[in-house]
């Protein structure tokens, strides 16, 4: 049983490293969309992995942890979609490296204030 617990702990460690990388990405990336790409997604995977690792360590907890993972999987993409759509509507300046912007919003006005 000891090895299983260590494997679970290592999975949790991996997840926390992803969380750290997400934090790094959110600091380093140049504009909002890239921050969402690097930050929110990496920390979502990190959270899922670390909860999964806890489930391996302590198999009695697996049901409740599965529900949490399910909720995180559903809700997180929705929130980043809403915030990125709002940011695009608001006319956030994108980084100079941007190649193309095919989304033309008919009702798009420059930012609100």
């Amino acid at each position: 049983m000891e090895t299983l617990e260590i494997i679970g702990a290592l999975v949790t460690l991996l997840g926390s490293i992803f969380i750290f990388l997400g934090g790094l990405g959110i600091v380093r990336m140049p504009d909002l969309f890239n921050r969402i790409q690097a930050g929110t997604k990496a920390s979502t995977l990190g959270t899922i992995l670390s909860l999964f690792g806890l489930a391996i360590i302590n198999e009695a907890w697996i049901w409740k942890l599965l529900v949490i993972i399910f909720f995180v999987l559903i809700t997180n993409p929705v929130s980043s979609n809403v915030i990125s759509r709002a940011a695009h509507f608001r006319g956030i300046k994108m980084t100079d490296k941007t190649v193309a912007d095919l989304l033309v919003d008919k009702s798009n006005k420059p930012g609100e204030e």
Partner: protein
Amino acid sequence: MIKKGILLLLLAGFVVVISNLIINFSGSSELNPLARYYAENGPTEVGAANLVTAVVVTYRGFDTLGEVTILFIAAAIVGFFLKILNSNNNRTSSLRKPSEILETASTLLVPTIFMLGTYIFINGHLTPGGGFQGGAVIATGVMMIILARPTSEFNHKLLSILEAISGIGFVLMGVLGLILASGFLNNAFLPLGKLGNILSAGAIPIIYVFIGIKVGSELTSILNSLKENQNEV
């Protein structure tokens, strides 16, 4: 400048008063007698595994009754202050429509949020949670509906009926405790059951269902009056 000085003086007085408390603080290493009584006798007297629930619903049930009343008064005053003067709904049409993802996700998530709220207040005597948290979660579910479909309307009649029924039910449970058991809001007039089962702790699950519906409908009516008020001015 004098004003700023007076403000600083006020703040300094506040800091002195509380710093006196904090310097002499040393954490307690054992429970005080009241808490010890609750910890030792709570499981046998009330039958609830969650002692916080036992305190909220039975030992200090009057506090809860007063608290629900305060919330009701707050909801009523908010509704009164924000009474709609002219309700023409032309503004809602100018709103930007939510994205399709949010709409579809809300049809999936709203039942799930309601399920979680129901779980929280029905299991209030076993796990953390109870009527207040469950009611707040349910109000958040209603909030989700408003966010995803800004044009949706709420049935005021249904809200007030739910609130009235649950309030009457809560008081009725208290009076039943007074008649059938030893005191107001005593839960022991139903069998206490085995500690840790879902149908245990006497009347606590029923009381929590009432509290949950009441808190949920009150918070919903606060949100509703804030929402509808946007149509004027």
